[in-house]
């Protein structure tokens, strides 16, 4: 009798702790492409976290005796113009990419969410003004706006994060505003207002938690864009600065001067960028399909 109870309790406990596993397995089975993307993302995360352990060299260590070496036994992906190992710099570059990508995506989505929900909640004139301002910001390509922010603030990884956050905000605000518009008329918001709850509390405690699905979708959808944007800015020399390891920066050093002598300098960072953005896009798309297919825009 006691054994049966213990067994059934163990079963219950196992079932509850395996819920995330269940969800993941179901996701993987129904959307194999998205699961593949998620797997690559996780691998990239591991690579970034364990960079010190798995990379054979120091990413900043120059070695003028081994400049521009082709891929071989010592340097698996070759060396660059300063003798630095390309594979190590790619591994450390994933750290920069993930850090900048996540930070800017997270800040952009969060600020966009707050602005969008607040705009929807207050309605009327405030809504109109905020909408006009967001429209203005939306009329620029991502990179132009990011460049303007870099022009104001200067280069460096913190400024790059801010530069990428700014163009993300209006895009997120637009989507989250439309989600929040329907929330405004729900009974629980009405009840809170009748109780005399302050505006800030309603927005943060009642409305924001209910737009989690579109928020997560925007977050993951923009991760890939953020990584691309960071690579573009670094490529132009207006992003992360030397000697930090960043994929866009590696392409900058490689571009036309060393094209004939050392093509590996240009190929591998680009493959890294493409693969990671690809993975993030796949995962983001599948997440969006799973959570809310109505948000399918492009």
């Amino acid at each position, binding site marked *: 009798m006691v054994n049966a109870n213990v067994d059934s309790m163990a079963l219950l406990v196992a079932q509850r702790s395996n819920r995330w596993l269940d969800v993941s397995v179901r996701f993987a089975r129904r959307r194999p492409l998205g699961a593949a993307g998620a797997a690559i993302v996780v691998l990239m995360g591991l690579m970034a976290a364990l960079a010190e352990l798995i990379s054979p060299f120091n990413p900043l260590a120059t070695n003028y005796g081994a400049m521009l070496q082709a891929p071989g036994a010592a340097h698996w992906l070759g060396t660059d113009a300063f003798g630095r190992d390309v594979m190590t710099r790619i591994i450390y570059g994933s750290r920069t990419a993930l850090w900048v990508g996540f930070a800017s995506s997270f800040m952009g989505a969060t600020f966009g969410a707050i602005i969008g929900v607040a705009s929807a909640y207050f309605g009327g004139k405030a809504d109109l003004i905020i909408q*006009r*301002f967001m*429209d*203005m910001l939306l*009329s*620029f*390509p991502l*990179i*132009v706006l990011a*460049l*303007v922010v*870099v*022009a*104001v*603030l200067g280069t460096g990884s913190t400024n790059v994060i801010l530069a990428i956050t700014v163009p993300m905000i209006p895009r997120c605000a637009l989507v989250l505003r439309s989600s929040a518009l329907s929330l405004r008329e729900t009974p629980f918001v009405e009840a809170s207002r009748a109780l005399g709850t302050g505006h800030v509390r309603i927005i943060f405690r009642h409305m924001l938690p209910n737009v989690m699905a579109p928020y997560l979708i925007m977050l993951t959808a923009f991760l*890939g864009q953020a990584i*691309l944007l960071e*690579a*573009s800015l670094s*490529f*132009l*020399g*207006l992003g992360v600065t030397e000697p930090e390891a960043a994929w866009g920066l590696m*392409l900058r050093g*490689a*571009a*036309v001067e060393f*094209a*004939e002598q050392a*093509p590996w300098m*240009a*190929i591998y*960072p*680009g493959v890294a*960028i*493409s*693969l990671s*953005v*690809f993975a993030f*896009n*796949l995962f983001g*798309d599948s997440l969006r399909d799973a959570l809310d297919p109505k948000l*399918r825009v*492009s």
Partner: protein
Amino acid sequence: MRLYVLKRLLLMIPTLLGVAVVVFFVLRVLPGDIVELKYAGTGAYAPKEAMDRERAQLGLDQPLWKQFTTWIVGIPRLDFGTSMWTGQPISHEIAIRLELSIELALMATFVAVLISVPLGTLAAVKQDTWIDYCVRVFSIAGLAIPSFWLGIIIILAFVIYFHWLPPLIFTSFWVDPKENLLQLIWPALAVGYRYSAVATRMTRSTILEVLREDYIRTARAKGLWEQAVLIRHALKNALLPIITVIGLEFAFLVGGLVVTEQVFNLNGIGKLFVEAISQRDYTMVQSLVLLTSFVFIFVNFTTDLVNAWLDPRIRYQ
């Protein structure tokens, strides 16, 4: 219809004015004086009087609102002021580069439409088959692969395998079409591929929706052969969102090809923008930002007009 056009035209002006105000004041707020930067670069000793004279010449000693109004008033006359770095009138700097940027944008759009519409339709018709998956992976790859990296790879391939480099000097299409196309087709391909990614997915999803409509079923029931159903009925009705997406992406192309122009060493608006930012050339940056915004708004306006022309239901709203 005329009222619709007029309303949209009038709405453009406050938006542009808003952009002008924001860009002007944001740029002036920041630290770093261009005159100091100019002299610091040369390493020469610059007496204060020389710098002050330079400032007066550039109009920087006037109060901010006066500088702003001088700029704004000049715009309808196409006088954007003088570049702080080169001293040339900005409209001249822009004019010599505009042709290249517009031609590149048009070619990239052409490439994109050529790729996206047939592929998207194919993927929609053969939904969930391996053709569909291939097209979807192809288009997601287009979004992921940085277009500047694709450009680098194209140049690399040419240099290594064919020992040939695309022409570096821009010759106008009207002067020598072959040189012109040889130079611009490669960036157009790189950009067009990325551009087509968005359009392909839009085409695919729109055609999927349209194929579920009743009139398609009627056309098939009438015995119309499948290709005619597709082209005459499905594609026509699916055109609206596709044109909107293409228009939206095109709007970003004229000033937004910053990195591609750097890779292919094209002397276009994007390259001008990057240079202006590195040199803290505020008047140039603000004029270029305004130009980009204007192009975006104008292209959106044209897209809306085309939509209204194609679909009478929109006109009579």
